[in-house]
């Protein structure tokens, strides 16, 4: 599903990611820990095809990036820090716009608005909604096309416990064995992150300092990343 071999990405002179190598299979969840500026978001953006790797091999869904990025688009759902929604448009208008871009029917929009409990506020401009509501709309946007690979950058930020439960079926590990949901999640929550991880990657200053199966990682090791 995802193969990284010596991945390097720079911003000017600074290396945002240095020599990252890992392998993630379909249906597995990789949780990436690390302090701010560690390279978590950069990794997610490379996997989503929005950023190019500067060296090293990146294979996503069996396709090599960046050369075959066209084949990956539309099969990945990215939920980042920004909701990627227009503030002046309503939640329904935003989701319908994204549905058209992904060739998804409008019934899916209504299904997702109901799933994230936004039907009642769906016709209000996004700028009038709370941050939690916007995050729920963003979850709906990222999962609108039922992507095979979910890239989630602190997906539960701004969500209260009830909202977390609401979005869980959309961004959780999935229950359909015929369609395994593969996830890469950026997190600052050691307990929550370890609970849902199959594989753990710890980054510090773009350097992978921890890479292991989740069962072999302790919370103390995660906490060490932030010191």
């Amino acid at each position: 599903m995802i193969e990284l071999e010596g991945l390097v990405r720079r911003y000017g002179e600074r290396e945002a990611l240095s020599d990252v190598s890992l392998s993630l299979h379909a249906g597995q969840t990789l949780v990436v820990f690390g302090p701010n500026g560690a390279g978590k978001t950069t990794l997610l953006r490379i996997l989503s095809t929005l950023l190019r790797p500067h060296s090293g091999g990146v294979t996503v869904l069996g396709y090599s990036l960046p050369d075959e990025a066209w084949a990956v688009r539309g099969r990945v759902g990215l939920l980042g820090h920004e909701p990627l929604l227009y503030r002046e448009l309503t939640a329904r208008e935003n989701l319908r716009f994204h549905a058209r871009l992904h060739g998804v029917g409008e019934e899916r929009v209504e299904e997702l608005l109901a799933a994230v409990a936004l039907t009642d506020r769906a016709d209000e401009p996004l700028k009038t909604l709370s941050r939690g509501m916007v995050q729920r709309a963003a979850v709906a946007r990222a999962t609108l096309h039922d992507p095979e690979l979910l890239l989630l950058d602190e997906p539960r930020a701004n969500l209260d416990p009830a909202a977390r439960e609401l979005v869980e079926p959309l961004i959780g590990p999935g229950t359909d064995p015929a369609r395994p949901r593969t996830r890469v999640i950026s997190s600052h929550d050691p307990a929550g992150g370890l609970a849902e991880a199959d594989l753990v990657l710890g980054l510090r200053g773009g350097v992978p300092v921890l890479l292991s199966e989740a069962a072999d990682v302790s919370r103390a090791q995660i906490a060490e990343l932030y010191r």
Partner: protein
Amino acid sequence: MSAASTDEPVQPAASPEQAPIAPQARGPGMWATVAALLRKELLVELRTLESVPGMSLFAVTTFVVFHFALNQNTVSGDEAAGILWVTLLFAAMLGVNRLFVADQDQGGFDAFLLAPVDRTAMLLAKALALFAYLAVLELIAVPAFGLLLLAPPLSQTLPDLLLVLVLADIGIAAIGTLVAALAVQTRARDLLGPLLALPLLVPVVIGAARASSPLLVLAHPAGVGGPPIRWLATLALYDLVFGLIAYAVFDFLLED
């Protein structure tokens, strides 16, 4: 390194079987994508009123200023054409500068790049949106120009002038979209946009002014002449060249 070496990729022992690779996602066709983008573009403009009202107000205000600054009630010929096209050009720049701002600031670029669609659709949708903004601008600005400054009656010149307006608008839309996509990715976008666009748009202004000048003379006999074919052809050729350049390079402007 805390737990495992990163020299070798980790292969978890209890991994599920590799799922078969699904075929690539199928997005909508080119024109459906253009329609979706254009609809969104016009909806955002209707809600924010950030571009067209500003462009129109600028143009009308400029004509009022010319009316008093020139200390004459009417202008015609080259003078009229120059005032009309320079004003329309600067008014258009306001729209060009705003064209991609919402996409850049609110993540619209990223959302579009994640979709399985032809990227040229964004060029077409943005150029069509800018063309629409220019059309609305001219619906307001040209009558205002006729009222405030123009010597010959507008009804005499309008049919021929329409053709010049359409050809110039196509050029402004193509060049404006290209430049706006480039400028919006920089911090100095408000400065860079006009700096890049104005030199490229000077030929459009020259062509449009020369083509419309004979239409704006007081003694223009109705039904005789019309806009010079040479300048109309120049405008059309310039539109074609920049349309093709925009088509060729637009994808690269969206790339990381």
